[in-house]
């Protein structure tokens, strides 16, 4: 493995897990010449004409699907931290003695700590997806056999569609399915909302297995996953812990500092002229990207304006705005609470989206760039507005990229971050891992002030007379360094040992994650 310097001046390997890589060339610079991936033509003559694809158990289905060493197995993360299907899946794979699997989840959660023993014994070769919590620690310490690959939600779709990742078997956990494999996530005891993240898997995998705890009579509608893409259906007792799949209700943070940041964001959007009739925004379900919703709601009511659509991360707060007529549509990538699930099920204006519609960079456009404002988080930012979202300042991988990279393309991308966490400054001299180029990041809002990217002279002009604390990023950094007792030192890493790479939305390699010494 040779490290080469890419267009962002980061060193990245030319080969990852035996596959040749293209280093990051700049935003919008890489134009692939090859064709989309495809698979062999199927014939319905090979499938039961009565439409009944139910198999007795997962092991039988995996056997029939031709599971063997070195295959790529995909799962999705709609069941979040309540998921037991993925752990069960690997228990079965392990029992079959199969090795060196490339696990390709759309995201991982702390509940997947169970899989560490399979990473250790060679059942799983490496992870391409996200490496959160215990899996992140395992990877950072250099214990994974292969090199981890981190992709955004859009990048995951792109990698499958472009043939970068070929899925041998997709295992789709579905809260409702019929015998034909039509499936959705809005019905049943394990209802989780939309199943958009599993779309690429259903369309492109060689074999598709739907696992459900709620087998309903044909037709299972809405069919978020179409049975025509499905090979086998397995019925199990439970997909997981409903309380951890969606929260009963999403609660807004009580942290006064986060609320202050949320309030600054709402006021900034107002004063910059972004909150106006027909505007659109992206919201999330955690921290500040949720907390700013009530603040913009109040401003919208006062001004008498409506949003044309909101991208979610849906929660009860977004649903309330939809139901009160303040938003015309929710375009929902991921449903976070029971109000969100109910609304998606009953309200035609609460629409499920997929990484294809919202985020895929190799398509004829995507929704992310139509959005007027996106509010995102970050673990670190530097003075050039470059940001990190996967690792912490101690060098450990902690989070996945999620839709974060894709959302950077909104017309006004705002990172809501504390200026420091405990004693850890967030505005650093050099981000530990580069995940988002600064040219796409417009505003950084902290409790100590709002910094606008100097490239955005339009935004700077718009808030020139504002009473908001608009400050240069450097000045906020200096203040925080004084509080924390100087600039932090960098973690001790082995620069010759890459444990994971961060892909950009076009499949090129943006940065490397190194082994902690």
């Amino acid at each position: 493995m040779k490290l080469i310097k890419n267009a962002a001046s980061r060193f990245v390997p030319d080969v990852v897990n035996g596959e040749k890589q293209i280093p990051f060339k700049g935003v919008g610079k890489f134009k692939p010449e090859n064709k989309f991936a495809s698979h062999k033509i199927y014939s319905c003559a090979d499938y039961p004409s009565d439409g009944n694809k139910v198999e007795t158990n997962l092991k039988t289905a995996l056997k029939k699907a031709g599971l063997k060493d070195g295959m790529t197995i995909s799962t999705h993360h709609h069941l979040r931290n309540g998921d037991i299907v993925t752990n069960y899946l690997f228990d079965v794979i392990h029992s079959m003695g199969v090795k060196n699997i490339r696990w390709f989840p759309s995201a991982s959660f702390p509940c997947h700590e169970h899989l560490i023993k399979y990473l250790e014994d060679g059942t799983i070769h490496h992870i391409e997806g996200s490496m959160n919590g215990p899996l992140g620690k395992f990877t950072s310490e250099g214990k994974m056999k292969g090199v981890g690959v981190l992709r955004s939600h859009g990048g995951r779709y792109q990698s499958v569609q472009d043939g970068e990742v070929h899925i041998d078997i997709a295992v789709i956990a579905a809260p409702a399915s019929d015998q034909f494999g039509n499936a959705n996530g809005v019905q049943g005891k394990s209802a989780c909302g939309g199943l958009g993240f599993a779309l690429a898997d259903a369309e492109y995998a060689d074999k598709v297995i739907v696992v459900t705890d709620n087998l309903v009579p044909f037709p299972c509608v809405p069919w978020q996953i179409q049975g025509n893409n499905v090979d086998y259906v397995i019925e199990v007792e439970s997909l997981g812990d409903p309380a951890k799949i969606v929260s009963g209700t999403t609660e807004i943070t009580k942290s006064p500092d986060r609320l202050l940041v949320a309030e600054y964001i709402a006021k900034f959007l107002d004063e910059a002229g972004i909150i106006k009739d027909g505007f659109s925004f992206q919201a999330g379900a955690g921290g500040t990207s949720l907390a700013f919703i009530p603040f913009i709601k109040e401003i919208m009511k006062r001004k008498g304006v409506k949003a044309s659509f909101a991208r979610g991360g849906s929660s009860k707060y977004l649903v309330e705005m939809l139901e009160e007529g303040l938003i015309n549509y929710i375009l929902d990538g991921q449903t976070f609470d029971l109000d969100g699930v109910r609304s998606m099920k009953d309200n035609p204006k609460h629409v499920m989206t997929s990484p294809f519609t919202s985020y895929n960079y190799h398509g004829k456009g995507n929704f992310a760039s139509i959005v007027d404002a996106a509010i995102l988080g970050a673990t670190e930012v530097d003075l050039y507005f470059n940001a990190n979202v996967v690792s912490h300042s101690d060098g450990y991988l902690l989070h996945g990229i999620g839709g974060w990279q894709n959302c950077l393309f909104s017309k006004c991308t705002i990172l809501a971050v504390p200026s420091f966490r405990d004693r850890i400054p967030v505005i650093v001299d050099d981000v530990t891992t580069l995940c988002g180029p600064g040219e796409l990041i417009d505003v950084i809002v902290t409790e100590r002030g709002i910094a606008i990217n100097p490239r955005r002279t339009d935004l700077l002009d718009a808030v020139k007379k504002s009473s908001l604390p608009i400050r240069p990023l450097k000045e906020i950094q200096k203040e925080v360094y004084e509080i924390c007792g100087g600039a932090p030192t960098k973690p001790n890493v082995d620069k010759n040992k890459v444990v994971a790479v961060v892909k950009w939305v076009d499949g090129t390699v943006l940065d490397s994650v190194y082994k902690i010494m």
Partner: protein
Amino acid sequence: MAVLKKASAGKRGDKIRSDCFVEIESANKGGVKTSVVSKVDSMYGQSINDLLIAMCDFFELKHASIIVEDYGALPFTLAARFEAAYKKLKPEDTKEFLPSFHKNNHKGTSRDRLRRSRLYLPGNESKFFPNAGLHKPDAVILDLEDSVAPSEKESARYLVRNALRAVNFYNAERMVRINQMPMGLDDLKFVIPHNVNVVLIPKCESAMTIKDVEEEINIIKAEHNISNEIYLMPIIESALGVVKSYEIASASDKICALTIGLEDYTADLGVERTLEGKESIYARSTVVNAAKAAGVQAIDSVFSDVNDMEGLRASVMEAKSLGFEGKGCIHPRQVQVVHEAFAPTEKEIEKAKKIVLAFEEAERKGIGVVSLGSKMIDAPVVKRAQHTIELASLNKLLDKNWKRE
């Protein structure tokens, strides 16, 4: 008294953030051994070690083993925890390891400064200190009294002392609530030399308490050769205190405000504290009256339900109508609501503008008597109008160039 060999201070446990635990065991030989486990080791491990060594040198601690469990404590906290542990071992050592002053903390204050909101910060919870001022309270109170557990009283003093010096509270006035007497008198050594602006004296029941505190302050000021003004704010928290409120409010010319604490007052009466507050109307009115009679500000108690912002707003409106000029806050999000509720109405602003203009006109013409239409305006009315204008412009209800209109 037996000489301790081992002492500790600070906090430990999975849930602790922005704090640390320090244990010092003294020895007769072997030099200083440190063992540090820190959440921020890769970023500030060296800095932590440097501070420990500097403190050992300062206190001439030559042989000891020191254990630090750090959860991201800022340097002023780490130093306070170390010193608290050390002083338990060597109470006779009078040397103090003082962090340098943040430039904002040299600021003085004035007797009639605006005190609409004062944000309580538990004195032993340093994680709340650095961001408190960002919520723009008129004052912060570093509390050594009710919010600090008896076992942590000593430890909290070092933390509050260091915070008064090193933490930027932005433009908030820096207050400290000391303990009840006699412990409160000992607290003063930790705050008076460090540019505190106002000392809150809890559970006042006589002028004597005020005089004792004032005398102790004067002794410490003389010892340290400091001349900045330090004001006093007595808290009335009992039936007897209410009866003596005028005596208390007029006990010293250093008193800037009189305030009331309703949790303890209602407990003293043996009644429930209600949202409506009928049970305390006599006490509140008496305190307002005593304050005004003594020429100091009247400041209301805290509103305890941090989730009920509308209740808070109504409570402040009521306080304002009774004559109070400020309210205690126990959560940063209460500050803005308090400021908004104390803001003058449009009608009040219009009236104040006319009075201020008439006053300036009279001054320009050298006329001693201010009049508006056919009405004479007294000096206190002019002063109130000026106060209204200040509040209006602070709440952005009035452009600072309004006179040009």
